[in-house]
């Protein structure tokens, strides 16, 4: 922890050419959360700046401020030295700032040329779209980045890498000075990544300022000229890449004061309840093996897209593995549908409550009893009194404060919805509970309650799998952690050896001898 904040601030470049865009002391808060606190960021022409930080460090918020989607509460944005305010996304793009997102925001049913020029297509004198000029100019733009894509094909017929190229051509078409690349390589193959690097070099040569957001250290060291590190919405450090080591970057990313208090737990795992052997999937993961004991909390750490959720979804019967076996309590289990998994005693609390967990239109009690209707009905008819009893029992255990159990779930806060979703699963009396990012996007108070509750569940002998991208959560809650990277298990780390550095290293694929 050599880099203290004050010292790090001084490493900010003073001698570099004037920045195209500079964020100065930006603060952005959302109800209950401070997403960014007094952060600064400079982007220089002809240079790649890597923005580094854990999940929740505030990277996406910065992107949204730069592209005019959010307005900062305090602080100034300067473009070419002059303070500006972006009232809307169009203002940012007019100022020459453009972002290429993880999932490119383009139109599948339109042609490449139409995508590049949507919103600012060349017009004929009559005001109609000048198709011929549009196609010629699109061709020229694509040629300038060496992209051999037919301007007439529809976007949906292109691969992700080609879509990126189209997005970049679009950025060039509006004469962008700043190109933001938010995890551009997440979905690309090795060859495509090489092509992207070449493209970044060309953009640099054209004098564009590039903000490159990535979790992958090899990429950052390969193409970035400068780095800026954020942690928990604060600026930690910045400087030229040449003057920093992987170790120093990792330490800047994770070195934190432990603000969240995690419940103390007696760790005494019992019998093995779940044994997974050689689980594989044609595209998502390969050769996943692990075991889980009663009363144990097993953390799954990794970058977004490492395949953690996909493994769990296969285990829960949403998808089917191509190979591998799962044994529950010593007997082989065939799980082809979620209903079978629930009967076998495995439940999965999905990450995305809105789309996968909660049914907002249904009352709270009906959400809770939905997977347990077999138990709350007799002769095929539901018994409402029994449903209420079950719902009251489990929401009560989670300390849910709701006025009435028959109000719609959608009326509750995010944290309380999460509690209802967890209560729903507990009511099925599972043996293994899989929690996918259980505290993502909920307020601190609810977070603590969920952690407390996880500890209680484990103490009662339930086996818990916790997928988390938050290092403190893994360190604070898990008895053991499995780190996944690119669909495989990169490491299994037992309690005593757990440290932020180890997790980040394995997740980012930094080899030990690089130390």
């Amino acid at each position, binding site marked *: 922890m050599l880099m203290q904040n004050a010292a790090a601030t001084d490493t900010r470049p003073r001698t570099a050419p004037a920045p195209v865009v500079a964020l100065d002391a930006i603060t952005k808060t*959302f*109800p209950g959360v401070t997403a960014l606190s007094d952060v600064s960021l400079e982007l220089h022409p002809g240079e790649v700046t890597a923005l580094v930080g854990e999940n929740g460090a505030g990277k996406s918020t910065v992107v*949204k401020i730069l592209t005019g*989607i*959010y*307005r900062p509460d305090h602080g100034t944005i300067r473009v070419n030295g002059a303070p500006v305010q972006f009232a809307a996304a169009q203002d940012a793009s007019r100022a020459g700032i453009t972002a290429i997102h993880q999932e490119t925001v383009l139109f599948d049913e339109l042609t490449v040329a139409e995508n590049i020029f949507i919103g600012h297509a060349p017009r004929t004198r009559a005001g109609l779209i000048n198709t011929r000029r549009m196609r010629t100019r699109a061709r020229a733009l694509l040629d300038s980045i060496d992209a051999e894509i037919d301007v007439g094909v529809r976007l949906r017929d292109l691969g992700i890498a080609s879509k990126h190229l189209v997005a970049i051509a679009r950025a060039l078409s509006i004469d962008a000075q700043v190109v933001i690349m938010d995890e551009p390589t997440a979905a690309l193959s090795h060859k495509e990544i090489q092509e992207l690097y070449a493209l970044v070099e060309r953009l640099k040569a054209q004098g564009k300022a590039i903000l490159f957001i990535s979790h992958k250290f090899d990429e950052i060291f390969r193409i970035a000229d400068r780095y800026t590190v954020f942690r928990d919405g604060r600026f930690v450090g910045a400087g030229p890449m040449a003057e920093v080591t992987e170790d120093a970057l990792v330490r800047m990313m994770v070195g934190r004061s432990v603000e969240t208090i995690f419940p103390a737990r007696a760790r005494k795992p019992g019998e093995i309840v779940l044994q997974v052997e050689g689980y594989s999937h044609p595209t998502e993961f390969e050769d996943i093996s692990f075991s889980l004991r009663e009363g144990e909390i097993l953390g799954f750490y990794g970058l977004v897209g490492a395949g953690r959720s996909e493994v769990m979804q296969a285990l*829960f019967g*949403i998808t089917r593995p191509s190979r591998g076996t799962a044994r529950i309590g010593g007997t082989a289990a065939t799980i082809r*549908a*979620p*209903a079978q*998994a*629930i009967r076998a005693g495995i439940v*999965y609390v*999905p990450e995305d409550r*809105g*789309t*996968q*967990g*909660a*049914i*907002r*239109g*249904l*009352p709270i009690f*009906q959400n809770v009893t*939905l*997977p347990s*209707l*077999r138990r709350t*009905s007799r002769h*095929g*008819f*539901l018994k*409402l009194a029994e449903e209420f009893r079950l719902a009251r029992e489990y929401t009560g255990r989670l300390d849910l404060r709701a006025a009435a159990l*028959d*109000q*719609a*779930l*959608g*009326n509750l806060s*995010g944290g309380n919805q999460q509690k209802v979703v967890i209560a*729903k699963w507990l009511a099925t009396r599972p043996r293994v509970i899989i929690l996918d990012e259980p505290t993502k996007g909920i307020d601190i108070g609810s977070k603590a309650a969920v952690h407390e509750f996880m500890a209680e569940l484990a103490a009662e002998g339930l086996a818990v799998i916790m997928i988390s991208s938050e290092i403190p959560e893994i360190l604070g809650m898990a008895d053991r952690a499995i780190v996944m990277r690119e669909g495989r298990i990169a490491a299994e780390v037992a309690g005593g050896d757990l440290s932020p550095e180890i997790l980040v290293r394995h997740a980012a694929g930094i080899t030990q001898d690089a130390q």
Partner: protein
Amino acid sequence: MTALLKSREAILLAAILALLALIAARFPGFVAPSNLVRVFTDTSPLIILALGQMCVILTRCIDLSVAANLALTGMVVAMLNTAAPDLPVAATLAVALALGAVLGAINGVLVWKLDIPPIVVTLGTMTIFRGLIFLLSNGKWINAHEMSASFTGFPRAEILGVPMLAWIAIAAVLLLAVVIARTPLGRAFYAVGGNPHAAVYTGLNVGRTQFFAFMISGALAGLTGYLWVARYSVAYVDIAGGFELEVVAACVIGGISIMGGIGSVGGALLGALFLGVVKNALPVVDISPFWQLAISGSAIIIAVAFNAQSSRGRGRVILRRAEHRT
């Protein structure tokens, strides 16, 4: 939510009562008990079909083939009756329900197993069913004199001064109310329509649930097919042509969300009654029946606008709202 639904039904009920009061002010005869029974009986087919349609819409699907199913089943039972005039009514009812259910199950299987959008499936089967009627009947009509007295008499037979057709509608309302509120299947309709992804994670089989909704809708359409043909004592290719839109309209007016997951038996009933009252009142107050279309159309738009208003602001992501604000 339930309070909101209840109040929405209350509003609809108030609208129907206001309409009746308005008409009664000038034509007191319209609200005489005997006429109200007549109006209810006349609306019964719409009520029964709306109940089935409600199940389908709840699961985020739509069944455009109900009227064609009705016509095909009606034609089949009419032909059966001409071939075997002594077949008891109970058997005819069983055949109508079973055939309707099979036709509905075809829709259901196509939606479930082939994953085709329901609007496309039922648009297709709608045309196929109509075509089948033509093939079966060679385009000929089956008229009153070809049907047996017991066949045509059943829907009109009165108990306590109320025709059997109306009693069947009442029974269907009660039955569906139980299915919807008190069975795992009914609950699954709401869950599947309210959030199909979450339903999958909860261990519900979305396709299978939708299949059963289509089967219920089909069975009720088949039942109505017999009642319709018997009541009007005629069967031909085009009976109940375009009626499926009226059925969907009744559901929408009744507050059943076309996006699935929201609705009630009471809503479907009141939606159908509203259309029934309008339809029967217009000739009485001497307004061209063409106005009926305009009135139903306006009622649909008002109902949908009302639904959209009441569901706004519910369960939105905070950050997304912040995005809009800034």
